[in-house]
């Protein structure tokens, strides 16, 4: 008799659901993909329904339903924080009480309302937030044993934990607690540099290579004390999140010479340098924690989760420093991954199921292709119903060749193929593809496809067997969670001194060719890499292989299939809508190809530029 567990994360940001069977991941998805509301924090009813459909089971057949967080422990932290804030904590107390005591502690009500059952346990199970993160990192990893590090903004109290995993057992040994949080430091800096908290943190990471870490000492001396063992504590006098509705305060402003950057205003040298500085601090802390984890556990392998584990620049540095032999990072390292971790933790720690590793030594995340897939019959029905001109190429090699040729001709391809990714990155299931050799691909894709700020780089997807031909990376990177330098022999010299001749004209900087794959080479020659293995994604691997046959380059630009501010597309309808709203040339829906110049005028009922707020 199989054991089925449904895991749920909700109510903070990036709600999600995941379903596991006998320790195997069956399905997982973020709610935002169904509701089309980015980072949707609401109860993930759609994601849950998808998971149950994918599993072909009824809710009453679930052996357990589990929530990834302990709301009473969170309430303990919030209440004590409000008490520390005194009268200034009044507003936060009211908001927090309504949220926690009004909604979050009653999560079982939401489950019953959504699926009519709490499974065979007839009660909702709860994990601890960082235990769920730890489980999401360890159980799907390819390691029998590993050190575990989780770092985020905050769970109930923990902002960072360290432990060890062995077979089916997870033990967390030490932690750092709120308000001392690396994630909150990064979010505070995100806010200060004019990006959105809870979603803009990776923009700060992408901005860092433009600057110099001139504020590093100031941050280390005033904002955060870091001990030799990697542990840290903030000086909370500089932060507003303890007693106000924003991350920073006037002291923080004064430290960096003025008020925060207004969103959408010009990015100046100050923000670039602050980004570089906080990134340097973050990397050092992550490294220090990792070294301490090595000392503490003696493990050869390390697994990571928590939102800070999405800082792929820090991950890349961690790998290069060789503190551990191997590293594995949960692709859905943020709160969405808590749903998966909670479900796996229940299977192994509650039901005591043994943990089975794959015989081929690969991880159990299934390429993180865990979401909905659409059959050719469904796509046929979709294009027929709407009368969309298309061609169908059933032969996979012929299809891959045509797609690759389109990319090689400098055109942009929207690509929907197979099961949707779980986690924030597009990995060749819901991707926009382009030619990395062209200097103008980055600016074209930014301005005409993504409608976004120009400084943000694109990422390469490279044939796994060719990774060392392009990048200084000695490991696979299937989930785009590692940043590594482009190989030196591929780089072109860039005069950084000329950058500021035109003031902060970032477009002129980003358009400089920095390598023979300029569209995916950041200003410091780094790249955020996805290595594509034929076992994980044979279709996508085939496309890149054909691109290599045509051009000699086994790498393409891979960016997420969405416009700015919109979640990554899920369905063929989402994909077609995005395709028609942008300057993409070709849309691939499984084995159907739709050319832009053949499509009828698109009647866009939605004023999408205001619907999808600028991100």
């Amino acid at each position, binding site marked *: 008799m199989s054991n089925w567990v449904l895991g749920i994360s909700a109510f903070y940001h990036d709600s999600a659901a995941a379903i596991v069977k006998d320790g195997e991941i069956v399905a997982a998805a973020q709610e935002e993909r169904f509701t089309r509301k980015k980072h949707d924090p609401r109860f993930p009813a759609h994601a849950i329904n998808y998971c149950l459909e994918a599993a072909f089971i009824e809710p009453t057949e679930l052996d357990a339903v589990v929530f990834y967080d302990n709301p009473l422990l969170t309430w303990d932290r919030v209440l004590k924080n409000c008490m*520390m804030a005194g009268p200034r904590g009044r507003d936060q107390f009211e908001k927090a009480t309504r*949220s926690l005591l009004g909604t979050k502690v009653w999560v079982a*009500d939401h489950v019953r309302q959504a699926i009519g059952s709490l499974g065979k346990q007839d009660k909702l199970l709860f994990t601890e937030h960082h235990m769920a993160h730890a489980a999401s990192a360890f159980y799907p990893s390819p390691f029998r044993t590993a050190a575990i590090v989780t770092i985020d903004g905050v769970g109930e109290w923990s902002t960072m934990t360290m432990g060890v995993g062995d077979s089916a057992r997870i033990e967390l040994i030490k932690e750092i607690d709120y308000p001392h949080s690396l994630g909150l430091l990064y979010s505070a800096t995100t806010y200060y540099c004019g990006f959105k908290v809870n979603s803009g943190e990776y923009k700060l990471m992408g901005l860092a290579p433009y600057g110099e870490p001139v504020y590093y000492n100031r941050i280390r001396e005033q904002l955060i004390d870091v001990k030799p063992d990697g542990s840290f504590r903030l000086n909370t006098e500089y932060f507003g999140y303890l007693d106000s509705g924003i991350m920073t305060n006037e002291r923080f402003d004064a430290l960096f010479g003025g008020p925060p950057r207004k969103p959408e205003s010009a990015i100046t040298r100050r923000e670039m340098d602050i980004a570089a500085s906080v990134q340097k601090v973050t990397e050092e802390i992550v490294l220090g924690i990792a070294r301490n984890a090595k000392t503490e556990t003696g493990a050869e392998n390390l697994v990571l989760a928590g939102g800070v584990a999405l800082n792929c620049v820090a991950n890349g540095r961690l790998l290069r420093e060789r503190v551990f032999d191997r590293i594995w990072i949960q692709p859905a390292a943020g709160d969405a991954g808590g749903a998966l971790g909670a479900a796996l933790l229940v299977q192994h720690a509650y039901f005591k199921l043994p943990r089975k590793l794959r015989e081929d030594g690969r991880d159990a995340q299934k390429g993180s292709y865990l979401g909905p897939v659409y059959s050719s019959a469904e796509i046929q029905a979709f294009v027929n119903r709407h009368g969309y001109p298309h061609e169908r190429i059933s032969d996979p090699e012929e299809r891959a060749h045509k797609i690759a040729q389109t990319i090689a001709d400098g055109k942009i391809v929207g690509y929907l193929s197979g099961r949707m990714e779980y986690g924030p990155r597009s990995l060749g299931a819901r991707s926009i593809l382009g030619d990395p050799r062209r200097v103008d691909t980055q600016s074209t894709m930014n301005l005409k496809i993504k409608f976004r700020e120009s400084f943000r780089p694109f990422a390469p997807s490279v044939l796994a067997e060719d990774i060392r031909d392009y990048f200084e990376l000695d490991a696979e990177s299937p989930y785009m969670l590692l940043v590594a330098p482009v190989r030196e022999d591929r780089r072109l010299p860039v005069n950084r001194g000329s950058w500021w001749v035109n003031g902060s004209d970032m477009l002129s900087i980003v358009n400089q060719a920095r390598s023979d794959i300029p569209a995916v080479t950041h200003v410091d020659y780094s790249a955020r890499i996805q290595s594509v293995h034929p076992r994980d994604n044979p279709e996508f691997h085939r496309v890149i292989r054909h691109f290599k046959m045509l051009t000699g380059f086994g790498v393409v630009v891979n960016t997420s299939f969405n416009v700015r501010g919109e979640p990554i597309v899920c369905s063929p309808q989402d994909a077609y809508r995005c395709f028609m709203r942008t300057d993409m040339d070709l849309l691939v829906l499984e084995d159907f190809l739709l050319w832009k110049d053949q499509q009828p005028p698109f009647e866009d009922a939605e004023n999408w530029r205001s619907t999808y707020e600028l991100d």
Partner: protein
Amino acid sequence: MNSTDEENKQTALRDFFERKLLPLAERLKLEGHKFFPMAPDAQAESYYMRRIKRTMLPEDFTALGSLGTEEIEVLLARMWQEQGYHELARLAVDIARLAGMLRSAESQSAEVSELIYVMF
């Protein structure tokens, strides 16, 4: 939800904060008590804390039980008693009452704050 309900909730929240929580907070502050450190400590060798609870046992997953208002009161009171916060434990009954009053399975806002990390 009618406006009277909303007013009652508002009043209950305000009353609890002003009449029960704030006075306790101020008493504790006068006693020099802090729930957590607010600043670095140059003398400390490390800021890591050893966890007391290192693994999740089966009973930990069900510790919140069916989580009604009675369980909320009992669990909070027990937790705070164990932590030595006896005065706080006595507020558990009021907190449970607030939870019952605020209880809603209505859909929350889809908006995620742009200004502050979502912590509750």
